[in-house]
């Protein structure tokens, strides 16, 4: 296991670029020594200043709720056997041989406990830390991360690819992914299915017939027409419109933005490796987007709640779900590593809950929130670990309950966000951004971050 490099120990760790930047500090009367001291102090506390910190996150959304004893927490009541991984002492289901070779990059949490076991409520709970309700629509994890860390560049920072919940992406689900009361600018950009031939991002492509001169012409007209009104009114909103307009134009004309969404620039080999289906291409696009500067991408290729195996659980897992996940996840981890992105890109693999330890009459497993598992890796997370444990049937948490608030706190800490923060809801109620069971504040998992 690699030694984490996030604490500055001595001056020789300082890179040349740092020194150049720091050099200007002497004008302010701060010496290099003092700067390094402060820097180390900040880094040790995990708040702003640590050099190795998550910059982006890919959420591999296993919509429907994956069966945990058949995946990351193998137990006797699973039809599948456990296999060893490349980390001594950690075993996962035999359905994931390729992922097993990347265990050193991943942490498994086997004692997740949430409180909702219906899809809309569970999705909302797992992505925001709260049940859906008229009194409180809490912002989604991705929205909060984007708000607290700020944009990396002009790319849309929060993306869903493709639109989740294929059967009805109605408000009950939408809200789980949305910014809600922190403002529409933190809503995700929803992309269509990238595995389709006609994949194209609407609104990001100017009509082919438009030249830049035509755009300029139009904008001149606009300034003429707007002048009359501008003189009459001067709302704060207009300032926002100006800013949004400028940002939009920047997005449209920046080659970086277009490239980030352009899958044709990936090699055929890469596309094959990830998998030519919706799952594979979504994750590939997600990798591309974080590489291009997105902050939080949810790859929801399993839309249609494919992991919701109420019948024929074993068959579907073995034939359809596990092969795609095993392939895509392992390729993603390898790809991120090779591109030097793994240290700065957090990877979260989870669904809205787990599945019942008992198999039902249709050979399936039903929803289960009392005890389930998820994977975390990259972004400074110390891999090759298991956190918590379930009992002999994975029915109850045996050791170390991890709530969604704890998960969020861990993720926020990886990003250098203050996980103790509260937001004031519209009715004036302060709510933790890492909200644990009983409205307590979630705690980051010390072993991981």
């Amino acid at each position, binding site marked *: 296991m690699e030694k984490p490099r996030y604490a500055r120990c001595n001056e020789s760790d300082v890179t040349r670029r740092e020194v150049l930047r720091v050099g200007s500090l002497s004008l302010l009367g701060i010496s290099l020594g003092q700067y390094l001291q402060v820097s180390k102090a900040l880094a040790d506390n995990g708040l702003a200043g640590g050099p190795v910190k998550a910059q982006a996150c890919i959420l591999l959304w296993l919509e429907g709720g994956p069966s945990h004893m058949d995946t990351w927490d193998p137990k006797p009541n699973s039809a599948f056997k456990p296999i060893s991984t490349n980390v001594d002492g950690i075993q996962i289901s035999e359905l994931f041989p390729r992922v097993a070779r990347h265990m050193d990059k991943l942490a498994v949490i086997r004692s997740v406990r949430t409180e909702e076991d219906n899809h809309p409520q569970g999705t909302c709970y797992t992505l925001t830390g709260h049940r859906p309700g*008229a009194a409180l629509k809490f912002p989604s994890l991705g929205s909060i991360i984007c708000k607290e860390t700020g944009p990396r560049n002009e790319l849309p920072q929060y993306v869903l690819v493709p639109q989740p919940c294929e059967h009805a992406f109605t408000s009950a689900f939408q809200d789980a992914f949305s910014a809600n009361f922190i403002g*529409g600018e933190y809503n995700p950009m929803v992309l269509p299915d990238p595995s389709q031939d006609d994949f194209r991002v609407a609104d990001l492509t*100017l009509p082919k017939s438009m030249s830049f001169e035509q755009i300029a012409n139009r904008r001149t007209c606009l300034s003429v027409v707007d002048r009359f009104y501008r003189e*009459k009114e001067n709302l704060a909103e207009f300032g926002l419109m100006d800013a*949004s*307009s400028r940002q*939009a134009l920047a997005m449209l004309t920046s080659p970086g933005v277009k490239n980030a969404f352009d899958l044709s620039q990936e090699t055929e080999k890469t596309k094959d490796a990830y998998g030519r289906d919706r799952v594979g291409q979504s994750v590939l696009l997600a990798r591309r987007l974080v590489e291009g500067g997105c902050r939080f991408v949810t790859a929801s290729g399993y839309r249609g709640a494919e992991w919701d195996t109420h019948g024929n659980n074993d068959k579907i897992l073995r034939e359809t779900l596990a092969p795609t996940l095993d392939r895509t996840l392992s390729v993603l981890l390898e790809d991120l590593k090779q591109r030097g992105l793994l240290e700065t890109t957090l990877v979260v693999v989870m669904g809205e809950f787990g599945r019942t330890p008992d198999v039902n009459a249709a050979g399936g497993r039903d929803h289960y929130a009392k005890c389930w598992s998820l994977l975390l890796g990259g972004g400074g997370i110390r891999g090759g670990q298991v956190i918590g444990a379930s009992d002999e049937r994975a029915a109850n948490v045996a050791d170390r309950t991890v709530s969604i608030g704890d998960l969020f706190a861990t993720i926020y800490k990886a990003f250098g966000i203050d996980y103790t923060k509260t937001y004031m809801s519209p009715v004036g109620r302060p709510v933790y951004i890492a909200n644990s069971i009983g409205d307590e504040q979630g705690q980051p998992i010390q072993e991981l971050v």
Partner: protein
Amino acid sequence: MNRAPGARWIAFLFGLLLTANGSMRDGGAVAAGELISELQALRLVPEHPTLWGAKASQRFVVLGTFADGLERDVTAHAVLTLSDPTLATIDSGARVTVRADGACDLIAQVGGCKASTRVQFEGSSQTLPFSFARDIGQILTKRGCNTSDCHGSVKGQKGFKLSLNASYPQEDYKWIIEGGVYKVLTTEQSEPPKPRINKEQPEESLILQKPAGVVPHGGGKRLDVGSMDYRTILAWVQNGAPYGEDDGKAPIAIEGLKAFPPDVVLDPQGKHQLLVTALLSNGRNEDVTDQATYTSNNVEVAKVNGDGMVEAVSTGETAIVIRGVGRVASARVGVIAQPIPNYPASPGSRNFVDEHVFAKLRKFNIVPSGLSGDAEFLRRVCLDLTGTLPSPNRARAFLADPDPDKRDKLIEILLASPEYVDFWAYRFGDLFRVHFTARQDLRGTHQYKDWVRNRIALNKPYDQTARELIAVQGWGGTTQHYYRVTSLMTPQEIMAEQMRVFQGLRLECAQCHNHPFEAWSQDQFWGLAAFFGRMTPVNSYLILDLPSAVAGKTVNHPRTKAEVQPAFLDGTTVPESKLDDLRMTLARWMTSAENPYFARATVNRIWGYFFGRGIVEPVDDMRSTNPPTHPKLLDALARHFVERGFDIKDLIRTIVQSRAYQLSGEFNETNRKDLINCSRSLPRMLEAVVLMDAISVVTGVEEVFELDNFAGGGSTPPGTRAIDLIPDISPSNFMDVFGRPNRQALPEPVNDVTVGQALHMLAGSTYTEKISMEGGRVDRLVKSGANNREILEELFLAALCRLPTEYERTELDKILDKDPSRKENVEAVAWALISSREFAYNH
């Protein structure tokens, strides 16, 4: 004293005397010796009070009317005397404290002006019997023990819970005497309770030691050992900590709080003392100014200290929330910029709406803008009544029409138009949530939609509509409201929604605990929820209230787990005979003319559509800590609405006929920053569907909307407009980007301008493709060979209901005449028009 020429000098001398006596407050609103000379009249408040009891006291305020029209608090400059000083004393806070029974005059004098009032003293040797609720409760409130961020918070603090604002004294008594820890979802205790009093060693009671700082207290020091409040509590514990109802009589309770003045107007240096009167259940009044707590809703506008002295900070308007024992009151405060010496005479009121609006503007020294121009009015009223822009020809005709009554006539035409029905069916569709269900019942959805539309078209009385919805039984279209959609609708969720829609009350917070901002208790919430407890499950086709023998399920209190009986908000439970007709019983209560919420909630919401904000905002959040900007107007509108038989169209007509609605959007110096008093028209962004239809109309290209697969796929029939759509049946990227409510929950206002919208404007198909489409307006204009003037006029009239200005004509001519393509140039102008702020906003 007469107004001798030396009055100014004498006044100044008095000012010095007052300073010397130390009875002058510092920094009074009026600088001594200056404005005093402009004092015209004086009065004392309260008038003719009766002080009862051994400890009775009353604070007084001396109000002076000045030449500039403003009434100011001049207590600090007044000399106060009693005609019979043996009966009472006066202190430096203008507080009269009783000594003996009798009556005398209190006289105030400022400069050359004098005022007096008769004060009665009774029962000076008697005290009210002790009442924990009143006497201890008021200490807990005044000392801040039971605020929402301390022990009054939902779970209490550090294991000690009090009710917010001493609203539930019996519970408070229990928590103090017995101890215990409040848990949200259960009444079980996980550890032995710790009483807050110690009867054997009263001084070691936690309820004394903690606030006195004798033991560590997270809330800091709240009481001084030996202070009046400390001694009161100590004496109470020493006496065995009674509740105060020993002789079986109900304790004399405080039934209400009144603040004076209810509307404070301050100049920029202004200060005003608030007076708070408690109305007791025995019919008496008591001055509780000293026992109340005061908070300003916006300290940037005005602040208030612990004694109730309000001080201006900067121009604006806010409210002071006053909490006394178990009650809340509020006073609105407006800080005006400068009193205006020559306030223009009112141009005349069209109806009572104007009277109230302009009276308040006068009081606050805000000058309303003039009447809107015809073009401004035309666009505004068409959009507000029908959500549809008029064609260029009709616009031109209206602008040119010399008839002085043309606005009224236009209003009638619009109210009678089919587009009025379309538009308001859309708005009520949002409110009543006409949407597709997870059970894919298209026919039912359309039945529901038709029912809503029908109510509007026939202008059915709104109370009838409401009752039909709340109490619906059977198979019909209206039952489709009770969907089992992806967010499962439990009885409490349904009730909370109906309360918001029809009563303007947000009770949801009280689902899990007593409401933090209002006196709604969790019990009241569940009492209401119980009305929906016997409905057939919402995913069945037949909706009705099952007879109790059959129902087999109950609504249970989440903490005590006991079954809850249906009860109205005022506490009355439902008689046995009505128990099989629960929802109709509730519906009748909710919509009756005597119900205090229904009419107000409805008129407030409708008002909000026309002015961008309700008289109470948010429109469904009426509570005492969120007072209306125009309380009398709200009451008048509600009364009018009830008298006219809950007629929605008549209400709308009354609003749009008013001058207040028809004001121009141009601001003047006095109303530039006013966003809440209707002193001018404020721009409001067009709703997504209205914007969509407007773009279609201007570009001359109809939009073709998708039909979801559930509805058969394909497209909507030709002629379908955006306001006809049911959101989940016809999804639309444009409308999602521009914030169309998806009706899965009640509509929330969408105010953010997002990058997504800007992107769509620049590159989205709606904006770019429709402009250039063949057969569209641009295409037609170019092909017809129209000249620049004709083109510009048609486009401007279509989009903005006005003709282009000289500047616009000149500049745009240059663009139109550019090489190479005239079509592209016209497209550029059309694009600019539909992307402009003026287009996207209703103003």
